[in-house]
C-alpha cells in the first residue's frame, strides 16, 4: 500500500481497541521470566559452547602477534578464533568501524579474539591467557583540540543550510546572544548487553541476537561472513533495551557465528559490560555555537547554530543543528556542521540523535535570550512559533501544536509562580523551575507484515518488527484487533524473525507508526480476502465482534477463514507527504529542581512533559516511553558522561558503576500529558513517534531550572556540582 494522500476515515478511527490503555501483552512472559532473551535461548538437545571476547588494549594501530597457545590448552577450551586468523572481513554497510578481522585496530576494545570453552568460566579464564603484541600509533582523541581540523561532512548529511542573510541581520539586531555549549559522549547503557547465539546447519546459520533492526543485521552479518543473505536466519523476539545501540550489527553476532563455525557447535557470546562502551557505538560529544538576534519585542530576526563533532574516518556528524532549522521562526538563519576525525570508538545514533544534544544547547540559548529580552521564556517561544518550515515557507507543518503544549504545561505546572533566579530558598535548597520545548522529526519507514486468519478465528500477525521494551507487541495486536473486528484475546503477534516480512524496525521513533501502518496495510489485504471469499462487496463490509457483516448477512470470521485459513500480506510504502509537509512531533518539558546551597548537588523535584505526537496508540505504553526518556534526559543533564582519556584514547568509566545513569532515588514524580490530536498526513494510523520526543529538551529544562534556582548558568553538560559550587553563595 502506498500512503500518498492524507488519511480519511478508516477502521482505526473506531478506537474500540486502538488508543485504549491496554497493558502490554508480553508483560506476563517478562515478569515471569519466560520471555527468552538472546543469551537465554535453550534447547535441551543442544550442547552450547561459551565464547568470551577479547578487546584491543590500544586505541589505534595494528596487532602484530597473538599468542593463544596457553589459552588453547586451558581447561575446557574448544577453540580460539583471532582477528589475525580470520583475516580481513568485509565490513557491514552500516558499520563505520570494522567489527572483527584483520590486523588494524581502529578503537579501544575492538574485538580481536574470541575464546570458546565448555563453560563460561573456562572461556573467561582462558581469554585472560591470550597475549597480544601491538604496534600502537598516535591517534586523535580530543574533540576540542581537533576542532580547527574539522571539515564539512558529506553533503548527504545536509551539513549547511541558510536562508536570508544571517550575518547582516545578527549584526544589526537589537538584542543578541553568542554562546558556546558542549555535550559529552554518552553511552546507551541498556540493561541487556549485546548477546548472540549462533548455530550452523551446513552453510546456513541461525543467530538468536538482540537487534533493533532485523533486516539491517541480517544483511550486514551476511556481508561480514561472506555468505548469501538467504542463508542467515536471525531471531530477536525480546530485547532488553537498545536506545540505538543495537541498530547496527555488533561484534557479538560476528564472533558467535565465526566461533560456532570453527568448533562445529552452537556458541553463545555476550559482550561483558566493561567492554560495551568502547567496543560498541556511543552518542558523540558536541561543541555547539549558537547565535540569536532579536528585536526588543522578542521577534527573532537572526538565528545560527553550528556544531562540531568527531568520528572515525567514514563516519558522520552528530546532527545537532537539525531542529534549529525548524523549531523557531526568523527570516535570517544558518546552520553548519563540522566533523573532526577522532580515533575514539564509533560515534553513532543514540535515542533522538541530533535533536537530543542539539536541544540541550538550543533550549538553554532560548532561555538566555528570553532573559536578555526581559520576556518570559514561554512567551518568547510562542512569539517565535511558526506553522511553516522557516527555510522554505511554502512548506507547512502537517500539524504543529507547540504552543498548545507550552500553554497547557505552564498552567498544569504552575509556571506563573516562577521566581527570579536565585530568589527561592527552602531550607538548604535553592529551588527553581525551568522549561524547554521538545521537538523531534517524525520519520516513516517502509514496513511489511503478514496477517493470518485461522479456522478458530484467531488473527496472527507476523512481521520482523522488534519490541525493544517499547510495546510493539501490544500496539500491533491492537491494530490487528481493530482492523479485523476481534478482541485482543483473538490476536497473536510474532515479531523479530527474519522469516517474516521486513518491517520498519525500532529506531528514530519511527517504529510504532510505521510498523502499525504495515499491519494496517496487511489487514486491508486480509479484509479483502475475507470479503472476496464470501462474495461480499468490500466497500460496505463491516468487521466487528468476530463476525463479518454485509447488509443482513453475518458470517463468523472463523467460518470465513475455513479449514485452510486466509492470509493478507503487504508493505506500507510512503509517498511525498513527508516532502510536501514537514512532519514533526512537539512537546514541552517542565522541571523543578532543588540545588543544595552548600554542596551544589542538584535533585529533581517534579517533571512534566506535554506531548503533541498525533494519535496515541496506547496511552500506557506511550507514557512508559516518555517517562523513560525523561529519565534519560535527567541522566544527560546531571551525570552521564563517557570520560575520555585523551592520552590513550578510550572511555575510562566503561561500566555501570562509573557511567552514572539515574537511579530510582534521582527520579521524582513524573507526569505526562498527551494532547488529544491526530495527524492525517502521517499515516492511516494518524499517529506519530513519541519515544524520542520524550527525551528532547528534558536536559535543557533541567539546566534552565538550575539557573532559575541558583542564578548560575552552566553551558557544558553534565551539570555536576563542581561546575556550580564556585558561583554559589558563600556558606562558611
Amino acid at each position, binding site marked *: 500500500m502506498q500512503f500518498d494522500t492524507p488519511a480519511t476515515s478508516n477502521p482505526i478511527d473506531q478506537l474500540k481497541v486502538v488508543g485504549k490503555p491496554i497493558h502490554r501483552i508480553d508483560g506476563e512472559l517478562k515478569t515471569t521470566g519466560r520471555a527468552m532473551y538472546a543469551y537465554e535461548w535453550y534447547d535441551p538437545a543442544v550442547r552450547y559452547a561459551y565464547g568470551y571476547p577479547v578487546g584491543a*588494549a590500544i586505541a589505534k594501530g595494528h596487532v602484530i602477534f597473538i599468542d593463544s597457545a596457553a589459552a588453547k590448552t586451558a*581447561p575446557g577450551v574448544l577453540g580460539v578464533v583471532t582477528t589475525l586468523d580470520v583475516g580481513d572481513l568485509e565490513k557491514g554497510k552500516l558499520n563505520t568501524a570494522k567489527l572483527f578481522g584483520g590486523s588494524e585496530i581502529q578503537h579501544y576494545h575492538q574485538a580481536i579474539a574470541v575464546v570458546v570453552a565448555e563453560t563460561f*568460566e*573456562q572461556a*573467561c*579464564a582462558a581469554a*585472560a591467557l591470550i597475549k597480544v603484541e601491538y604496534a600502537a600509533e598516535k591517534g586523535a582523541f580530543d574533540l576540542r583540540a581537533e576542532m580547527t581540523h574539522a571539515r564539512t561532512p558529506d553533503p548527504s548529511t545536509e551539513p549547511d543550510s541558510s536562508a536570508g542573510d544571517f550575518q547582516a541581520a545578527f549584526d544589526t539586531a537589537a538584542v543578541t546572544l553568542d554562546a558556546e555549549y558542549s555535550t559529552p559522549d554518552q553511552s546507551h547503557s541498556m540493561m541487556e548487553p549485546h548477546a548472540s547465539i549462533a548455530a550452523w546447519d551446513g552453510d546456513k546459520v541461525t543467530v538468536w541476537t538482540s537487534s533493533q533492526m532485523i533486516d539491517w543485521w541480517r544483511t550486514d552479518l551476511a556481508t561480514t561472513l561472506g555468505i548469501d543473505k538467504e542463508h542467515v536466519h536471525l531471531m530477536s523476539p525480546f530485547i532488553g533495551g537498545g536506545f540505538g545501540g543495537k541498530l547496527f550489527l555488533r561484534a557479538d553476532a560476528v564472533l558467535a557465528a565465526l566461533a560456532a563455525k570453527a568448533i562445529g557447535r552452537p556458541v553463545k557470546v555476550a559482550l561483558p559490560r*566493561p567492554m560495551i562502551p568502547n567496543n560498541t557505538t556511543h552518542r558523540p560529544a558536541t561543541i555547539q555555537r549558537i547565535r540569536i538576534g532579536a528585536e526588543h519585542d522578542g521577534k527573532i530576526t537572526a538565528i545560527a547554530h553550528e556544531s562540531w563533532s568527531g568520528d572515525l574516518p567514514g563516519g558522520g556528524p552528530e546532527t545537532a543543528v537539525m531542529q534549529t532549522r525548524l523549531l523557531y521562526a526568523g527570516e535570517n538563519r544558518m546552520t553548519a556542521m563540522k566533523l573532526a576525525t577522532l580515533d575514539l570508538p564509533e560515534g553513532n545514533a543514540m535515542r533522538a540523535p541530533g535533536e537530543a544534544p542539539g536541544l540541550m544547547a538550543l533550549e538553554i540559548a532560548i532561555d538566555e535570550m528570553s532573559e536578555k529580552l526581559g520576556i518570559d521564556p514561554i512567551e518568547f517561544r510562542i512569539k517565535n512559533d511558526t506553522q511553516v518550515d522557516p527555510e522554505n515557507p511554502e512548506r507547512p507543518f502537517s500539524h504543529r501544536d507547540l504552543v498548545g503544549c507550552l500553554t497547557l504545561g505552564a498552567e498544569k505546572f504552575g509556571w506563573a509562580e516562577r521566581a527570579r533566579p536565585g530568589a527561592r530558598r527552602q531550607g*538548604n535548597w535553592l529551588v527553581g523551575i525551568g522549561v524547554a520545548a521538545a521537538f523531534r522529526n517524525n520519520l516513516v519507514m517502509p514496513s511489511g507484515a503478514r496477517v493470518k486468519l485461522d479456522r478458530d478465528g484467531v488473527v496472527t500477525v507476523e512481521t520482523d518488527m522488534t519490541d525493544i521494551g517499547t510495546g510493539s507487541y501490544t500496539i500491533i495486536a491492537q491494530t490487528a484487533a481493530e482492523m479485523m473486528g476481534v478482541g485482543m484475546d483473538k490476536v497473536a503477534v510474532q515479531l523479530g524473525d527474519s522469516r517474516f516480512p521486513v518491517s520498519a524496525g525500532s529506531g528514530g521513533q519511527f517504529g510504532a507508526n510505521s510498523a502499525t501502518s504495515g499491519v494496517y496495510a496487511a489487514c486491508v489485504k486480509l479484509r479483502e480476502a475475507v470479503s472476496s471469499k464470501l462474495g461480499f462487496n468490500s466497500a460496505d463490509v463491516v468487521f466487528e465482534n468476530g463476525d463479518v457483516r454485509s447488509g443482513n448477512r453475518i458470517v463468523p470470521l472463523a467460518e470465513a477463514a475455513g479449514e485452510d485459513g486466509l492470509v493478507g500480506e503487504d508493505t506500507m510504502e510512503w509517498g511525498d507527504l513527508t516532502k510536501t509537509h514537514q512532519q514533526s512531533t512537539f512537546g514541552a518539558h517542565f522541571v523543578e529542581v532543588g540545588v*543544595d546551597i*552548600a*554542596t*551544589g*548537588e542538584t*535533585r529533581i523535584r517534579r517533571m512534566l512533559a506535554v506531548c503533541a505526537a498525533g494519535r496515541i496508540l496506547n496511552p500506557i505504553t506511550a507514557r512508559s516511553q516518555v517517562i523513560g526518556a525523561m529519565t534519560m534526559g535527567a541522566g544527560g543533564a*546531571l*551525570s552521564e558522561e563517557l*570520560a*575520555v*582519556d585523551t*592520552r*590513550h584514547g578510550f572511555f*575510562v*568509566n*566503561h*561500566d555501570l*558503576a*562509573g557511567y*552514572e545513569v*539515574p*537511579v*530510582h*532515588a*534521582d527520579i521524582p514524580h513524573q507526569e505526562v500529558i498527551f494532547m488529544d490530536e491526530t495527524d492525517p498526513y502521517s499515516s492511516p494510523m494518524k499517529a506519530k513517534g513519541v519515544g524520542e520526543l520524550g527525551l528532547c529538551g528534558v536536559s535543557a529544562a533541567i539546566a534552565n531550572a538550575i539557573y532559575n534556582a541558583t542564578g548560575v548558568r552552566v553551558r557544558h553538560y*553534565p551539570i*555536576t*556540582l*563542581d561546575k556550580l*559550587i*564556585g558561583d*554559589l553563595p558563600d*556558606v*562558611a
Partner: protein
Amino acid sequence: MKAFSYERASTVEGAAKAAAQTPNAKFIAGGTNLLDLMKLEIETPSHLIDVNGLGLDTIEKTAEGGIRIGALVRNTDLAADNSVRRDYGLLSRALVAGASGQLRNRATTAGNLLQRTRCPYFYDSNQPCNKRQPGTGCSAIGGVTRQLGVVGVSDACIATHPSDMAVAMRALDAVIETIKPDGAKRAIPIADFHRLPGDTPHIETALDHGELITSVVLPAPIGGKHIYRKTRDRASYAFALVSVAAVIQADGRGKVAVGGVAPKPWRAEAAEDELRKGAHALASALLADARPTQQNDFKISLTERTLSAVLAEARG
C-alpha cells in the same frame, strides 16, 4: 575469572591457619567486592576460604560500655541495630548511604573495611596500575581523575578508599580485632589499619597474610550530634565525591573524618582544634597537604562546603 579451590572454615583459628598454608588464599564473606574483582582478574586467589560459617555475626556490649561488632555482621543488620541507631547514629547513617539495599544485605563489616578502590584505571587491566601490578606505574595520574584522591596520595597512586562505613568508624575511634595464623590476637586502632600508598600502594592495610578480622570494637558512646553527609553526583548507588562523618558536641568540639578524598578515611585529630573556628579553618587544617589534580581540585572547596553544611546542621 581464574579457577580456584574453595573451603568452608568452621573455626576462626582454622580459617587463619588455612590461609597461612596457601600463599595465594583469600577469605570470602559477602563477596560483594571480591567476586567482581575476581571476574575481572584483578584479584586472582587460587584458594578461597569461606568464613560465613564462623558465627561472628552478633553485636555485643563490651565491659567498657561500647560494642563489639562481629566481622560478619551484615551492613543492613548493623545499620538497623538498636544500640547502633541510639548510640552511634553516625555509623548507621554512613552505612545506609553506601551501596544499595541488595549489596548491604550481603556485605559484611570486615569486608567493608577491606574493599578496594574504585579507581577506573585499577579496574581496567589493560592499564598500568601500581596497586594492581606493583611497579607498572600509575595511569590515573595525568588521566581522568575527577573521582580520585587529593590528600594522602603519592606519586605512585592517587586512588581513594571507597567506604562510607569506615569513615564513620574512623570518627568513632573504632578498633579492629584480629587473629593471626599462629593464634595470636591483636587490636588495631582504625587510624593505623589503612595505610597510605607511598611507594607501595598494593599494601593497603596493616593485616599480615592470613590474619583474619574477627570484630570491630567501638568505645563507649560519646553523645553529641551524629551527622554523616555524603556528597555525590546521583542520589543513590554512587561513591562519595566527599563525605563527612562528624560527632559534634554541644560546646562545639567534636570528631570529624572525611571520605572520598584520600586513600583512607581521612582524619587529623589536631585539625579538630580548629572545629570551633568553622569549616574553613577545619578544612584548611585537614587538607593542608592536599595535592589535587586539575580535575579534582573542586574537592577542596567541596570539602569545606560539606563541612560547613554539617556544622550548620550540628548547630541547628
